[in-house]
């Protein structure tokens, strides 16, 4: 079952549209649609342990077993080929299976997320394409998924 869903006007757009053609992808977000309520905080069949390099400050308050969202900030192409920095919630409600915190918060640590193969691809793409990755922590038991519009200062400040 495909767990990652692209919610946008152009659902059939190539996945890379999220980064390459933000004008088409305006309002598009990727969300996990399969409630992973029963997933344990360890690697299970059908899923992949996806390790992501993460700044120490992002890992300070994350622990194994938490459910998190992965936010990626990237330069999207908007009208007239202009670039604009925007933030998208690329993965929602994913389980943390390992955390390696660096000695200092300025250092780089790693977080291992339990992702299905499609989500793992998007996580890898986010690492390669994104300017910044942020991990936001959910409350225990909060597994709800939200359709999310991307954030951009252009939208906010008109």
């Amino acid at each position, binding site marked *: 079952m495909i767990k990652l869903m692209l919610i946008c006007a152009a659902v059939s757009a190539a996945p890379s549209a999220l980064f390459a053609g933000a004008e088409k992808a305006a309002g598009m977000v990727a969300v996990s649609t399969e409630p992973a309520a029963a997933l344990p905080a360890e690697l299970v069949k059908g899923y992949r342990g996806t390790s992501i390099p993460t700044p120490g*400050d992002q890992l*300070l*308050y994350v622990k194994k077993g938490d459910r998190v*969202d992965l936010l990626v900030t990237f330069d999207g192409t908007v009208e007239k080929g202009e670039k604009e920095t925007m933030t998208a919630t690329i993965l929602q409600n994913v389980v943390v299976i390992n955390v390696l915190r660096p000695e200092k*918060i*300025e250092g780089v640590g790693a977080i291992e997320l339990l992702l299905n193969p499609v989500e793992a691809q998007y996580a890898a793409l986010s690492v390669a394409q994104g300017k910044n990755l*942020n991990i*936001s922590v959910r409350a225990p*038991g909060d597994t709800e998924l939200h359709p999310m519009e991307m954030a951009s200062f252009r939208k906010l400040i008109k």
Partner: protein
Amino acid sequence: MKLKIWIAAIFCALSAQTLPAFPAALVPEAVNCAAEDMQVFYYYLAPEPGQNVKERATQCHGAQTTLKMPDWLESSLPAMRERKLWEDPEEGKLSEAQLWQTAVSIMYEFAWKTKKTLPIADGGSGVPIPALESDYNDMRLRLIMAIDRIVRSGLETSFDGRGNALLTTLNAVMEQMDVLTDAIAKGDEEGFDKSAGEGLKLSRGLFSQLFEAAPAAPAGKFVFKYTPQARILPGYRGVSLRVPGSQVMFLNSGDRADMLVTFEAILGSGAKEKVTATILQNVVVVKVYKPGTADEAGVVQLLCNPNEAQYAALSLAQSKSINIIRRAAGDVELRPMEIASFRKLFK
């Protein structure tokens, strides 16, 4: 002589109907009796408590086999039910009695859920404690909100002057709820048992307070001795932001703050200008990491909704600087804010 003292003690206990102190242990009797006490308390506040509530047979109060609803309570209740003090968008206007009822019903739910964790042989359901983690977190949150409404409605003198004492007990329950949910998150079963036992004891103590004499002096403004921990709430996200140490030195968990972002905006002419915007208002500080010195990096974890979380992340990536500014306790007002720019200022 000894016999006389003993008889006198029994007489005093029955006439004042003071209930005995209870042990703080997670045993079937404690769970069942806490549930019974909270159920009776709840029905005392109901519109028409039946005779079986006003005079209830019990095995939970030592020698007292019948628990009689206190006379002062019966006479106070009509006014408590009449006085509408809180407007709830979903539940409508709530009376003084209903505000207390909400807290009591959560305490009943607490006992009932806790009973589920007992072994089947002890009358429980043998439910593993971690399976109830979100239930306990939910109860914790609802209890905080219920107590907050009571305090904000100024019910210190409620229950014929006992309101303040009841709130003190509920505040102690809040603390145990924090300890208990922490213990569940850490997989600390012993810690869970201890705090659940304390919580049940406090529930029973809360009920006992109805049978104690009212304080002679009128109650003053209630002051929380324990402030519940700021935590990530369902529907919200804990967003960690690395900021200069100078920004977090005076910030504490539980504070409310605004987040200011300075960035380069592109003007209509294509020129760039540095501007500052208040990007988030009235967000709760969940955790703070304060470095040793102000010039090192610190971290603040903010409680944001998913959309705010995206803007916080975007600000971090885009901005020249982030400022976290503290609000005064109780200041939750949101203000429309115009972006600051020197171009606007110096015309």
